[in-house]
């Protein structure tokens, strides 16, 4: 509740007149989209004011003005009864009025009741249609993604978890943006400690313009100096529902089509929801492929640099002449060569991401073929490194969570530099640093590296592999779920012999 208090103190700080009518009239001075008009009806005149830009004019006409003109009325009560708008209120409080006006309410005032206004909800509804997920596309999963409007998103989640135990706590964050944020959890499954932590931290956010859920996630994460994302962010309602069912806590903000899931572990950041739609063997294969590709993506270029700079002994004899031949024209040491190529790839990726889709594709082709080929021909890079870097880049795109993909790409650079300085030892040293760092990381106070550390073998069913669903009898221990069992264990034993 202290949130509202803070809001009030902010309002009081700005010079405002104490009289509601005067205050209303004064509003139109600075805000040219603020309208104040007198409506004449057979039963009397009525003043109505609103922000034209925030109001759905058709709705205002049909649901409010029409009945006002056709049905007799005298008081606010009469009006409330007659009009077709449900969400109305009578108030004399300036801050409330202000807030509602900004949310798309219209305020109407009877000439004889100057101290009070009637607030009518008629917000303009600019909304994107629920569309297919862009960053987390799945082939056989549902094709719906969150939109910017929080109500729609809540609807999407509620529809997937139609139980009363799905609790939603709403908060307003940001002294200027006053972003509406909803925290979701399932009572009876989620650990209350996690819920409290996340609400507590959200309440403590003190920032003027909160840009949305992703910005909030950065403000409340446990460690702000790390490159590893500590929350899963997703645009898929099914992922949110699945996470809630595991006992996690989710929050979303109005205006951003992404949900933030916590506490999260490193492994979850590499798992896609597609893993749960596919048969388990295929899902496990894909998941291992993905984990392998992450390792490859991080280590391939550093290993190339280390081997070619220091450890020529390790090159197998059949590869030796190929490697020497491909490098013999290149004037730079492997480090520069590798950084040049990595930099090029990053440029291409960034350019592709910033440009419209069609231009982006062109950039990809131009970059991949022209620059790659040309730099090999010009003797700037060896074609073996070109293959290695391109594969590594490709591998880094397999990461299902976008932010983790960024981390994988970024983290490669210190590895490359270390490998150029200390060879294989440098890579191992960097690896040790990353491991130590990961061990220290926490997400909402829960260990980030679980279930590897602390070791929880029962949770390994959903890490490197995704075992069949009959192994998923228990929720992951990582969340400390209040109720552990996911399904009732069926007692029917398969004691039958063949053909019985």
């Amino acid at each position, binding site marked *: 509740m202290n949130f509202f208090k803070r809001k009030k103190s902010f309002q009081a700080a700005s010079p405002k007149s104490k009289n509601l009518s005067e205050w209303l009239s004064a509003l139109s001075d600075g805000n040219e989209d603020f309208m104040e008009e007198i409506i004449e009806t057979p039963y009397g005149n009525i003043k109505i004011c609103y922000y034209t830009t925030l109001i759905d004019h058709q709705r205002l006409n049909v649901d409010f003005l029409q009945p006002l003109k056709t049905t007799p009325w005298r008081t606010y009560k009469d009006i409330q009864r007659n009009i077709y708008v449900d969400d109305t209120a009578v108030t004399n409080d300036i801050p409330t009025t202000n807030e509602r006006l900004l949310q798309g309410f219209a305020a109407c005032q009877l000439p004889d009741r100057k101290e009070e206004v009637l607030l009518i909800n008629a917000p303009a509804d600019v909304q994107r249609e629920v569309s297919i997920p862009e960053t987390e596309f799945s082939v056989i999963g549902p094709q719906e993604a969150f939109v910017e409007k929080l109500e729609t998103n809540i609807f999407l989640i509620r529809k997937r978890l139609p139980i009363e135990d799905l609790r939603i706590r709403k908060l307003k964050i940001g002294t200027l943006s006053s972003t509406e944020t909803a925290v979701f959890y399932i009572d009876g499954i989620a650990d209350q400690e996690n819920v409290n932590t996340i609400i507590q931290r959200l309440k403590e956010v003190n920032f003027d313009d909160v840009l949305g859920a992703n910005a909030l996630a950065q403000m409340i994460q446990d460690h702000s100096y790390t490159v590893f994302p500590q929350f899963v962010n997703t645009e898929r309602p099914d992922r949110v529902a699945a996470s809630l069912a595991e006992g996690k806590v989710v929050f979303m903000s109005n205006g951003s089509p992404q949900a933030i899931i916590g506490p999260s572990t490193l492994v979850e950041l590499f798992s896609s929801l597609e893993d749960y739609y596919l048969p388990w063997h295929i899902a496990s294969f894909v998941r291992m492929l993905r984990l392998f590709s992450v390792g490859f993506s991080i280590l391939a270029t550093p290993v190339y640099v280390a081997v070619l700079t220091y450890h020529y002994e390790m090159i197998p*004899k059949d590869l030796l*002449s190929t490697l*020497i*031949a491909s490098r*013999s*024209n290149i004037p730079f040491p492997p480090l520069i060569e590798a950084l040049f190529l990595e930099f090029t790839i990053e440029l291409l990726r960034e350019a592709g991401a910033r440009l419209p889709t069609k231009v982006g594709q062109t950039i990809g082709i131009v970059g991949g073929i022209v620059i790659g080929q040309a730099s090999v021909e010009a003797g700037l890079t060896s074609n073996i490194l070109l293959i290695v870097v391109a594969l590594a880049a490709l591998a880094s795109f397999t990461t299902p969570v976008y932010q983790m993909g960024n981390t994988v790409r970024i983290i490669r650079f210190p590895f490359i530099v270390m490998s150029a*300085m*200390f060879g294989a030892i440098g890579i191992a040293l960097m690896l040790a640093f990353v491991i130590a760092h990961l061990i220290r990381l926490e997400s909402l106070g829960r260990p980030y590296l679980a279930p590897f550390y602390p070791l929880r073998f029962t949770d390994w069913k959903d890490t490197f592999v995704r075992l069949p669903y009959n192994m998923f009898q228990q929720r992951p221990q990582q969340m400390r779920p209040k109720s552990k069992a996911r399904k009732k264990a069926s007692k029917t034993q398969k004691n039958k012999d063949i053909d019985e």
Partner: protein
Amino acid sequence: MKKKKFISLSVLILLTGCLDTQIIDEILLIQTVGIDKHEENKLKYTVTYPFFLEQGEESTLNMEQLSVISETTEEARSLLNTRAQQPLRYGQVRVIMFGKEVAEEGLEKYVKSFYRNPRIGSQIFLSLAEGKTEEILRLKGEKQQRIGMYFSDLIEQNIEFENIPETNMHLFLFDLYSDGKDAILPLITKEGEEPKLIGTALFDFDRYIDNIDLNETYIFKQLRDGSEGGTSQFMVEHEGKKEYVVIENVFTDVQYKEKKRTPYPEYDIQVEIQGEITDNTGNIDLNDSNQVTKIEESVGKQIKTESEKLIKRFQELKVDPLGFGEKYRSKTRNWKPNEWKENIYPQTKSNVKVDLEILQSGAIE
């Protein structure tokens, strides 16, 4: 705070930028080393290494050979560097070849110096050259370009498919420092312009003693550790005529059994050979099981006599490449290497039993 510390640390490291690099196109990788005796106590080191001519897009592979006279391998490398365009490195050495004269005086110190150097692998091939290695390493024409891999491929494929017993630096050292076993090396020579393997060199500790030819090596390989390769041609009597069959070894199992111990040990050597006839002269009917049995017996007998002859010869030379000593030692509590070598080994008896089984004889009748 933490970030600052890290940045300052990394800057510090970058500034020191510290280690000598070994970028593969900026060093010359020695692939073959030859060591010959030179006048007095000096040795002549010959090395070959590939280098690439930079010609626009295409680089061409070339081979270069350098010789230098020195006492130790490391000094030789440093002397060689005074003549090389780029620094020479030992890390990719594949074959080390010793001249016969060097080997007669003992190889231990050289092999030890290669073993000491952690840059050199332990699966490289050592070999003995009849004549000067410098000559052998000088190939003509197209072969010269492939010289780096030429000898290592030559030895490797012969170990895998033909008659040369398995060997590399590790195995040589193992045998060298083993009390009850003597080392061997493949023997290479040059005939005209062609380098070729001609047999196996026998060592007493680190000194070259004698060598056996390829046919004996075939037998030797079977006796030493059984084998899965090798081809040899045998003469058989067929209807009073001398005919030849070629038998390719499919699988050989050899077992040593100690029959008795005192006063001198006696070993039963059971050799079970499974082979196939890949070729024969004349008109032996290979579908006739009697004929095949006849060949089996006849060839088996030949292998037996050859084997016993070979073992006799080893005993006369007082070398033990078959490791009778090891077999004796493994059952002796007070093992005395010298007594074994001087007194017991020459008196050791061995009975070879050969059991040859022809599995098949090709795709035609």
